[in-house]
């Protein structure tokens, strides 16, 4: 073992400097932190440096540019790695039990299709988020004097994400993975004074930590099999051929649990909705758009194991588990999203659900890869999953930023309105405080009819929702279609997969419903509060990323045409496929809309029907409504609003019965998972811990103390023999004489 695959060592290219993609933001972390501490409150610092925002931005831009260069480089030369050096070296007694070998943990950069795709997503989104944050964070007074902390943690987070993507071994993947975990903890707990934020931060860290434990165990198992964690070693089919498939499946399964934690899948999903406690909506965006992808990335990295000839048919169980977990989460999260009133929570559950889609897609792809004869489909399925990751990241990023925009403006409107009130109101400060506390700027019940007031945001939201829902031709449509089709493809081969297959199909309809519901409740209908009526879209910086991402989402059709699906999963495909853009588009269209296989032909239209018509239709029936008189949205939104108003008026059913049903309550309670987990933690673990502490004090230490105490008693009773009377002393001595005499006589 230990032979490396034939991955060309790229020496003369830009790859050597790829490390700076990671290092730049990492080094910016202490700089921003200390400058911020130093100049806290300084006017120049606040105005010109945006409390660090304008230090972070160039860094992120540089990272992005470096990434782009790297991607271009990659397209030129293909998969490669750059070994920077050995991090640790140590002795290891090998299989023979005697010989000590030298083993190392290396450091390096590894670049292939998955890497560059994720690299683009991460660096691009991080840059946009940075721009957005400057608009969002620096205009909210609550953040004054602590934005430097935000930017510092933010750049560290980005460094973690980029590092994880670029790492050339599972070890460094894990290291950066944890680094991200730390930053997410810090960012969720950014408003440390809020108990809910503190709680959410802890919850996020702990839940992911549970997964991480298994990830570590998986990595350790993997290391013991391969003697290395470097991709170049573990992906080598020769090396894979030498290991036991059962053990490998167990190791990968362990690693998958780590991915489940990080990507908030059932049953470790509970942290994600609470993570919305972070600065609205930036940390949410981080969690939704980038960090959660880490788990997907990890599973995607397992592909070579499944594709290895020696493992054929051996790892299908794991593939099914991955798909099944995805299926369960997809439906569950979507269902919970039905009843959420909080704008960000809806998005959070939507994230969970969409990630589950990708997991299902990956599961299917892995199954296909692991099944002899299905390899060609595996590539497509894998590509579909990765493409969905891309689409979802872009769309969800946009959605979160848009929601942030909404919330931000709601806040401002509320603030302005109230400030206005103050002049004519004698109630003064008390009133202010009460009002401030009660008003929930994130609740959709307080919004409504914002489409006309926030055109850019509403548009972005619309496109994003459409992408997530999979409306034909927009963003996620291409990828979601692929995931569903490939899951069904597997289901036809393997009956077990009927379960995830049905789940994703059902999920498509549910997605259509809850995304539409969200958009309609927010942007359509009449403003539900006074605040919503006074919302304006006027914060600088915020529109830039929104507009950018809108175009990216819309243009994913081009990516589809460029055979992104194939390209992102297989190094055999060049970027612009041999077909060219036009041919590629035609190929894709044909493939999806006019599939030669009747089953998939029907499936496509079923998906379109339920996802684009049934789901949104129901949502319109329940939540649709026209704008306030005289208000008019942009041309591309007005018809939708009008349609929703019409559907709403004509709806033939009343949902109030099921809104109060047990199921609805259960969904609102997030299916009681949080409750159970909290109970388990508090009652069982904490209870046991307190018991243990008592045991430690009373029994273990108590033994020592008892010895100590009884020694005093024994001492007293011994000393009591010294009665004080000389007669007794003499008697004792006489007894001693007798004993001595007896002993000597007996021994003789």
């Amino acid at each position, binding site marked *: 073992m230990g032979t490396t695959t034939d991955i060309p060592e790229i020496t003369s290219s830009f790859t050597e400097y790829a490390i700076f993609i990671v290092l730049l933001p990492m080094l910016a972390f202490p700089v921003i932190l200390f400058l911020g501490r130093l100049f806290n409150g300084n006017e120049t610092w606040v105005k010109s440096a945006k409390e660090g925002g304008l230090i972070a931005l160039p860094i992120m831009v540089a990272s992005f540019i470096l990434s782009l260069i790297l991607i271009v480089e990659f397209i030129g030369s293909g998969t490669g790695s750059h070994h920077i050096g050995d991090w640790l070296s140590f002795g290891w007694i090998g299989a023979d039990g005697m010989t000590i070998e030298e083993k190392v943990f290396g450091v390096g950069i590894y670049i292939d299709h998955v890497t560059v795709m994720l690299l683009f997503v991460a660096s691009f989104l991080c840059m946009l988020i940075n721009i957005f944050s400057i608009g969002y964070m620096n205009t909210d007074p609550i953040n004054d004097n602590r934005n430097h902390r935000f930017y510092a943690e933010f750049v560290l987070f980005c460094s973690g994400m980029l590092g994880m993507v670029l790492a050339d071994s599972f070890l460094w993947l894990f290291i950066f993975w944890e680094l991200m975990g730390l930053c997410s903890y810090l960012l969720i707990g950014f408003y440390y004074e809020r108990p809910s934020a503190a709680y959410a931060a802890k919850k996020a860290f702990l839940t992911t930590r549970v997964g991480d434990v298994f990830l570590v165990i998986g990595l350790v198992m993997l290391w013991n099999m391969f003697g290395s964690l470097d991709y170049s070693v573990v992906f080598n089919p020769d090396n894979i051929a030498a290991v036991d498939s059962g053990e490998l499946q167990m190791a990968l399964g362990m690693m998958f649990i780590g991915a489940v934690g990080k990507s908030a899948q059932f049953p470790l999903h509970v942290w994600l909705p609470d993570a919305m406690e972070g600065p609205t909506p930036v940390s949410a965006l981080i969690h939704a758009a980038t960090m959660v992808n880490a788990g997907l990335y990890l599973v995607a990295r397992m592909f070579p194991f499944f594709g290895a000839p020696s493992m054929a048919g051996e790892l299908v169980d794991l593939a099914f588990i991955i798909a099944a977990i995805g299926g369960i989460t997809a439906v569950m999260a979507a269902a919970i999203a039905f009843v959420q009133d909080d704008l960000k929570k809806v998005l959070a559950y939507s994230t969970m659900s969409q990630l589950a889609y990708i997991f299902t897609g990956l599961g299917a792809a892995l199954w296909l890869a692991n099944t002899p004869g299905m390899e060609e489909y595996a590539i497509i399925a894998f590509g579909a999953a990765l493409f969905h990751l891309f689409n979802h990241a872009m769309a969800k990023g946009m959605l979160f930023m848009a929601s942030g925009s909404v919330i931000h403006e709601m806040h401002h409107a509320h603030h302005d309105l109230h400030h206005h009130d103050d002049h004519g109101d004698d109630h003064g400060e008390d009133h202010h405080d009460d009002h401030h506390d009660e008003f929930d700027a994130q609740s959709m019940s307080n919004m409504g009819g914002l489409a006309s007031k926030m055109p850019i945001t509403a548009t972005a939201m619309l496109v994003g929702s459409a992408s997530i829902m999979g409306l034909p031709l927009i963003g996620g449509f291409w990828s979601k279609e692929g995931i569903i089709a490939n899951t069904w493809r597997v289901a036809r081969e393997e009956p077990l997969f009927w379960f995830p297959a049905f789940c994703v199909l059902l999920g498509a309809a549910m997605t259509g419903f809850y995304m539409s519901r969200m958009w309609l409740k927010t942007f359509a209908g009449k403003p539900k509060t006074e605040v919503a009526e006074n919302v304006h879209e006027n914060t600088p910086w915020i529109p830039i990323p929104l507009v950018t991402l809108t175009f990216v989402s819309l243009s994913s059709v081009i990516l589809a045409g460029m055979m992104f699906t194939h390209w992102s999963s297989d190094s055999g495909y060049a970027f612009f496929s041999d077909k060219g853009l036009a041919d590629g588009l035609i190929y894709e269209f044909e493939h999806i809309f006019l599939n030669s296989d009747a089953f998939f032909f029907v499936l496509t239209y079923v998906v379109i029907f339920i996802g684009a018509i049934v789901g949104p239709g129901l949502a319109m029936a329940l939540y649709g409504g026209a704008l306030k008189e005289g208000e008019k949205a942009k041309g591309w939104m007005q018809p939708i609003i009008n349609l929703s108003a019409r559907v709403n008026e004509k709806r033939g059913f009343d949902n109030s019965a099921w809104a109060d049903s047990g199921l609805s309550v259960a969904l609102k309670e997030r299916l009681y998972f949080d409750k159970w987990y909290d109970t388990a933690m508090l009652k069982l673990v904490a209870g046991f811990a307190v018991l243990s502490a008592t045991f430690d004090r009373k029994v273990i230490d108590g033994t020592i103390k008892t010895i100590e105490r009884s020694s005093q008693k024994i001492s007293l009773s011994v000393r009591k023999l010294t009665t*004080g009377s*000389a*007669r007794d002393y003499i008697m004792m001595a006489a007894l001693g004489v007798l004993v001595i005499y007896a002993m000597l006589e007996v021994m003789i």
Partner: protein
Amino acid sequence: MIDPAWVSVLSALLFTIGLWGAFTRKNAIVVLMCLELILNAANLQFVAAAIQHGDANGWVYAIFAIAIAASEVAIGLAIFLAMYGQHESISLDDVNLLKH
């Protein structure tokens, strides 16, 4: 002549009585007397042994022992007197201020 063995028996008897008396009697003076008994038991034995072994040293030992006994009594009485002065008692059981 008496068999020296009988002298030894007598001395053992004296020793036993002395030792027994030393821890059964409360009166310090009586204890002192018991002490003398033990010492005399030793003297007797010395003399008897000297006769038995035909060694003059035994006689010398006995004389020395008598001197020791005498000074012991002197010291003992002095100390008991001091004790009586403080405790108003020469009962060994009463003098038990120092204990444990």
